[in-house]
């Protein structure tokens, strides 16, 4: 299998789907002439032309809304927003329109729209460019939410998202864009939504890592094995809606401990939601309270030392895992 960077895998997914289906087009700020703020759309304007690779003004709500309108009338738009922070400007079109229209109109039309955007801290972009908000979109019935953490999933899930008939919030991660990994070349390779990946098997504790934190969780798991003789099972849900709760519950039934690691805020976060689900469904199996490791409960600071301690790293995960053993 060829090795690709995460951004190249996304680029390949867009290219393949645009080649496969004339109705697929992409639009967003600086995705064409500029080749994308994070170079995900590199070369696509040249290959597909201005009709299908559309640079837009800086008008997030309207770009997404036009995607909704185009999706309702037969096209399959992929809208790029420069960061997840900017998606809040489009919240009305995403929540009140994209997510609602199929239900509100009794199933008369579909909204096969993909909204792609990166999230995440680590580049010193301060409090308006660095947040992780999968929880905001997870909250909304009618949306699908994907949080790929590997180049393979980036490609497979984006292709699936484009082919799906529902609106998909596709959350990439700025840190991951440069990461390499094996990616299937097969143009028919499509990842399943609602299928978690077990990144590492283990019997002692289940660590569920969201987005980039799936990577952090794996590193922490290696450390736990080497330094603490704890074998952690690491699960990457890959999509939050639909959620593969079966894989998570099955793992917890085996390990009796669960930790959720996410970069987003703690209150009302993905971890809060998963903790509730796990205790609803696997309460009798738990030997310790479900634990969470989350981003700090504050707007992301700019200064590097502050930023670095404001989102989780391996040591916090290791410590949280060990605490579940001590507390019992």
């Amino acid at each position: 299998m060829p090795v690709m960077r995460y951004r190249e895998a996304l680029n390949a997914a867009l290219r393949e789907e645009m080649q496969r289906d004339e109705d697929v087009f992409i639009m967003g700020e600086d995705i064409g002439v500029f080749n994308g703020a994070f170079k995900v759309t590199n070369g696509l304007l040249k290959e597909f032309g201005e009709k299908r690779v559309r640079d837009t003004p800086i008008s997030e709500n309207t770009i997404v809304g036009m995607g909704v309108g185009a999706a309702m009338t037969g096209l399959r738009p992929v809208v790029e927003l420069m960061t997840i922070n900017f998606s809040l400007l489009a919240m009305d079109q995403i929540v009140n329109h994209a997510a609602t229209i199929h239900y509100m109109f009794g199933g008369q039309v579909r909204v096969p729209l993909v909204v792609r955007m990166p999230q995440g801290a680590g580049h010193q972009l301060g409090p308006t460019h660095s947040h992780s908000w999968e929880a905001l979109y997870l909250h909304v019935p009618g949306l699908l939410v994907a949080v790929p953490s590997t180049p393979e999933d980036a490609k497979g899930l984006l292709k699936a998202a484009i082919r799906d008939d529902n609106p998909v919030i596709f959350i990439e991660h700025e840190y991951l864009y440069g990461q390499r990994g094996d990616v299937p070349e097969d143009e028919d390779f499509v990842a399943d939504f609602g299928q978690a990946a077990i990144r590492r098997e283990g019997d002692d504790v289940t660590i569920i890592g969201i987005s980039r934190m799936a990577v952090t969780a794996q590193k922490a798991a290696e450390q736990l094995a080497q330094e603490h003789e704890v074998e952690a099972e690491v699960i990457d849900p890959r999509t939050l809606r639909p959620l593969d709760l079966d894989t998570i519950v099955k793992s917890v039934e085996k390990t009796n401990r669960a930790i959720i690691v996410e970069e987003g805020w703690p209150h009302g976060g993905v971890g809060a939601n998963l903790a509730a689900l796990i205790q609803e469904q696997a309460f009798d199996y738990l030997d310790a309270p479900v634990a969470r490791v989350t981003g700090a409960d504050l707007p992301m600071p700019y200064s590097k030392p502050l930023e670095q301690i404001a989102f989780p790293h391996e040591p916090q995960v290791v410590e949280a895992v060990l605490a579940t053993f001590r507390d019992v």
Partner: protein
Amino acid sequence: MATRAESKKKDREDLPERDDARAWLRQMMLIRRFEERAGQMYAKAKVGGFLHLAIGEEATIVGAVRALRDEDYLISTYRSHGHALARGTSPDNVMAELFGKVDGTSGGRGGSMHIFDVGRRFMGGYGIVGGNLPLAAGMALSSDYQGTDDVTLCVFGDGASNQGTFGETLNLAALWKLPVVFMVTNNQFGMGTSLERHSAVTDLHRRGEGFGVPGMTCDGMDVVDTHPVIGEAVARARDERQPILVEAITYRFRGHSMADPEEYRTKEQVEEWRKKDPIEAFAQRLEEAGHLEEGEQDKLDEEVVAQIDEAVQFADESDFPPPESLYDDIYVLGGQVKGWYSVDERSAGVHKGEDEREMAGELGARSQLHAETARELDKKDTKADDGEDSDTAENTDRGDLPKESADSDGANQSPGG
């Protein structure tokens, strides 16, 4: 940028052909009677939520919709019963939607604010002010992309012209040369805030100039004026591939919604506008032109009233959606998408979904009770039947319902919520 708006109104005052003219009149009368009856049904608690009536605005609706081809897209707001009717949707299904019944245009999911008829390319009523503008541009983009010459007509109110989507969408539509007509139905008020209190520039058709969108105006109280102006705008959008902004100046005779005490305007002002009643004025001109015999309007009225009677009966007899349909159509299911949680399929067993279903059943029963109570009240034949007197919540059987206010407009009255 010479526009029709600059020509004198009298230049375009040719009456349509006799049959067309009579059809226009009948359609305006149908909308009027539908709206009046909807108001009465609201007073009897058969219609829930908010109800926004377009009485007084019939010429803007019929004049505009009749200027479209069948393949053109039409998209409107929360005041859109008339647009659906003018597009050809049966009053039966629109009334059933108001009643929250399965035979409603949206199967009872949308209600009065969210009428939709994909078969007639009526692409929806929308509850978010200004929310439909980007959608309209997206539809026009589809037409352009697919190489068709369909036009999208996007109707919104004067209030929506102050939303960010107005400027964003006009700019993008002009930039991308999209075949879309933006029709601002200027009924003088954004809910209860008058035009001069919400807009620095009150000539709304001028507000596209800075975005490269030419403006036109029409007398929205006069169907004979509205029709050719929208017709010209649609033709230009179709042929010249560019958006046009049309301001239709009109007035709603009723409140913003049924729960509107109308403290922001005087009775005298309403009376002045009522003198320009678009239906009466048009009927009179048809009589003068010999298109309508004396007494024929009464006969037409009997016809449309009978049609509305049937619509009410249809809506009454239609079923409420069954509780087990609660989760239908949240997602398009099938193919690779699996593993749902909090949707439905995982609900069996441990998930609370079963409780939700049970609760839905109880709510269903309560709705049934509600409907039965309404029928009882119906029999008592309260004075709410007079319609015109039942504008506000206070003098109806719905006095116990929350009153609409600035900060509750659009709020969802979800059952049990």
